[in-house]
């Protein structure tokens, strides 16, 4: 019997609607519920990490004023803040949250192809988060090894949390990777096999291209973290010497010999660099759709955008050692990795130009999602430019391990993706909940966050040029630091606390609007993509009622001349007398 594509099967409603509260909201296999579960868990753990950064900033801005922040705790805060934000918040939210919600809706399918595995993915993720947070409460506390967990210090006494914290961290990571793999296989297979009739790959919204490529990167790169986590666990528990060199610790010669800490760094960054793009590519995709929808104009250079995503995906595997310039390497390697790093700026720059050109002569609607999307172009360009500094070996050497680096990666993969997260939550909120959020509060949230993050991170570049090292608990009486640096640190701390508090505006807004928001209707933004064309808002189990949608056009038919509306949804067949595209903006 020949294989029948999912879109062509006629026994459509094969899912039985869940009836009990538990199967509907707890052990749910519905991608939308799983997405929301992922989203809430990720945001919760993100709030924890935000709290940790507030504690760190208190210490840095006003050293020795807070007796409850000891050096040990400071290092634990740094480590957990970094790991949570990068992996347990951003990766989980973009792929587990937005991926889960948008993939089936945007491709026009009823659900993921393996719903049971999708449900397991969330529950294993939840366990990994619990294991991670448990480490605060075990003897010795959480690990303070820094989010890179470099051995040998990560597992030797002297670093906080070497008793249990580091083990729980490694276990949490391994669990996360298992959860991600289950989810990731689902996302890839669903996009490949469950697309509605007429939904070719080139008619996918860019959101899905970004999520798709990021998932592939995750599937192939997370094993590197898994390998390093397993080997480090064995070094710690079984006394092996994969990474541990012969070493004296606290006056004692340890049993380890001959291991290579550099080996760990290679494995870690072989995962760590693609991880940047695992976070960035979904953001690129989502922001493209936000810009196009709210500028009422097709995305500039769709094909080029797709090619750029493919190029970034491919290149992201050959730049990892630019994180290791100061670890010592053959100069030719440094040259190689600096070159590949600078080459990856080309497709990235293409994307930035195309976003700007999408806005050019657009009918720009300054809605809340649009503000966040435009804000992203600023912060991302900013972080990208400092990346060019750090990608060059000779410039990186003096700047390495200073606040310049902290400023760079926070701009490029902290603030930028988070702005897209906010923009996307505001954008899809009416579809997810059926209600509109409060626009005024949303705008306040944007402006205070956007300007506030500049108040935090711009001065950090300057601190970096002064040579202020990152990761230090306190500077003490340091000669090279002028008085102004201390003042700056105070102002950064005040800004950071302020921006942290502003996020409660967002929480307040999305919680209160659940009940108080006005009815949004099925398509408040007049968007073309399929998720806005569902028969119900919010979409019901099975998404599409009795018949799956059929796709007739790409996702960017905005402002097509001759059509009675300024957008044509993807499931509208070709209309006589209306040109199928705007000749002037072809690329």
């Amino acid at each position, binding site marked *: 019997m020949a*294989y029948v*594509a*999912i879109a062509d099967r006629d026994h459509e409603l094969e899912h039985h609607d869940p009836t009990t509260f538990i199967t509907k909201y707890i052990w749910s296999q519905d991608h939308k519920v799983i997405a929301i579960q992922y989203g809430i868990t990720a945001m919760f753990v993100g709030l924890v990490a935000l709290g940790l950064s507030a504690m760190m900033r208190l210490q840095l801005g006003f050293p020795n004023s807070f007796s409850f922040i000891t050096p040990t705790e400071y290092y634990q805060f740094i480590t957990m803040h970094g790991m949570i934000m990068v992996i347990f918040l951003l990766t989980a939210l973009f792929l587990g949250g937005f991926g889960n919600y948008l993939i089936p809706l945007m491709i026009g399918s009823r659900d993921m*192809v*393996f719903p049971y595995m999708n449900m397991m993915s969330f529950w294993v993720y939840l366990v990994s988060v619990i294991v991670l947070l448990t480490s605060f409460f075990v003897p010795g506390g959480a690990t303070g090894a820094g989010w890179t967990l470099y051995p040998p210090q990560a597992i030797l006494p002297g670093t906080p949390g070497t008793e249990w914290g580091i083990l729980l961290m490694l276990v949490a990571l391994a669990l996360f990777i298992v959860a991600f*793999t289950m989810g*990731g*296989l*689902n996302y*890839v*297979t669903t996009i*490949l*096999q*469950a*697309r509605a009739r*007429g939904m*070719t*790959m*080139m*008619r996918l919204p860019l959101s899905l291209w970004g999520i798709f490529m990021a998932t*592939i990167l995750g*599937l*192939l790169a997370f*094993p*590197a973290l*898994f*390998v390093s986590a*397993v080997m480090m666990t*064995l070094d710690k528990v*079984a*006394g*092996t*010497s*994969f990474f541990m060199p012969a070493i004296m610790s606290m006056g004692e010669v340890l*049993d380890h*010999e*001959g*291991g*290579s800490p550099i*080996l760990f760094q*290679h*494995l870690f960054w*072989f995962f760590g660099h693609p991880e940047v793009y695992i976070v960035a590519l979904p953001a690129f995709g989502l922001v493209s759709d936000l810009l196009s929808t709210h500028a009422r104009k097709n995305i500039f250079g*769709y*094909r080029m955008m*797709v*090619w750029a995503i*493919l190029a970034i*995906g*491919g290149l992201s*595997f*050959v730049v990892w050692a630019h994180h290791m310039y100061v670890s010592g390497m053959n100069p030719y390697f440094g040259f190689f990795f600096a070159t590949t790093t600078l080459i990856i700026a080309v497709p990235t720059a293409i994307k930035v130009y195309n976003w700007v050109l999408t806005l050019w002569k657009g009918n720009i609607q300054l809605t809340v999602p649009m503000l966040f999307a435009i804000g992203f172009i600023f912060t991302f360009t900013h972080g990208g430019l400092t990346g060019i500094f750090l990608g060059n070996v000779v410039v990186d050497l003096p700047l390495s391990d200073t606040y310049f680096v902290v400023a760079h990666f926070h701009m490029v993969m902290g603030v930028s993706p988070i702005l897209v997260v906010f923009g996307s939550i505001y954008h899809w909120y009416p579809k997810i909940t059926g209600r509109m959020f409060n626009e005024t509060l949303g705008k306040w949230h944007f402006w205070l966050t956007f300007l506030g993050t500049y108040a935090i991170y711009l001065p950090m570049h300057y601190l970096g040029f002064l040579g202020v090292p990152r990761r230090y608990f306190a500077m003490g009486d340091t000669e090279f630091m002028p008085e102004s640096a201390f003042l700056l640190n105070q102002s950064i701390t005040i800004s950071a606390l302020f921006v942290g508090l502003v996020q409660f505006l967002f929480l307040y807004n999305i919680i209160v609007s659940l009940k108080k928001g006005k009815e949004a209707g099925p398509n408040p933004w007049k968007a073309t993509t399929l998720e806005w064309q569902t028969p119900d808002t919010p979409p019901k189990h099975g998404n599409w009622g009795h018949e799956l949608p059929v796709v*007739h*056009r*790409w996702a*960017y038919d905005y402002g097509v001349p001759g059509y009675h509306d300024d957008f044509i949804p993807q499931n509208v067949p*070709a209309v006589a007398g209306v040109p*199928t*595209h705007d000749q002037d903006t*072809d690329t």
Partner: protein
Amino acid sequence: MTLALVLLAIIMATVIGWLLRQTLNSQPWDANDPVENAPGRGVIDADPAKVGLLSFLAVVTSLFALFLSAYMMRMKLGDWRPLAEPDLLWLNTGILVLASAAFQLTRGAAKREQLRTIKVGLIVGGMCTILFLAGQLVAWQRLNDAGFYMAGNPANAFFYLLTALHGLHLLGGLWVWGRTTKRVLTGADVESVRLSVELCTVYWHYLLLVWIGLFALLLST
């Protein structure tokens, strides 16, 4: 990292190559574009479970490739003392080949709808796999008795680690095998298990391939 890079480059080239082909000649902005409107464009003619399994094998390939890369990097350092692999491993390899052959037979039988052969093939395949795993445990025991402890040398540690990893993947396969076999023995028809049998076969062949690669590397170093 060369090995991992080469294997990942092959995987990425395949993925990106396929995706790139979807973009060529296409003018997606034109709703009447004949390329985009061609029936069946971009559809992979395979069951989602098969596509899922192949994607999973890509992940496993990445995992093993990275472990082997780490092996080769660690090997170059001064304290590496190769261990003497027990001859038992040759026997184990033979048994795993038998398991793979049994699955191949089962797959053929599933295509020809021969229920009896499917039953026999599944049981033989599964038993051979269990025997292989038992054999690996005995090999561990012998190495341990001979003084090759895990913490003694990275070569030993890698040996235990890699064989354990491979064994765990087989155990995962056995779980699916167990469910399939139970269905067959309790009277399911051929149609309903054909896909499972086929997926098991692919998975076992793949793990045999991984084992042969691993074994060759372990023997040669």
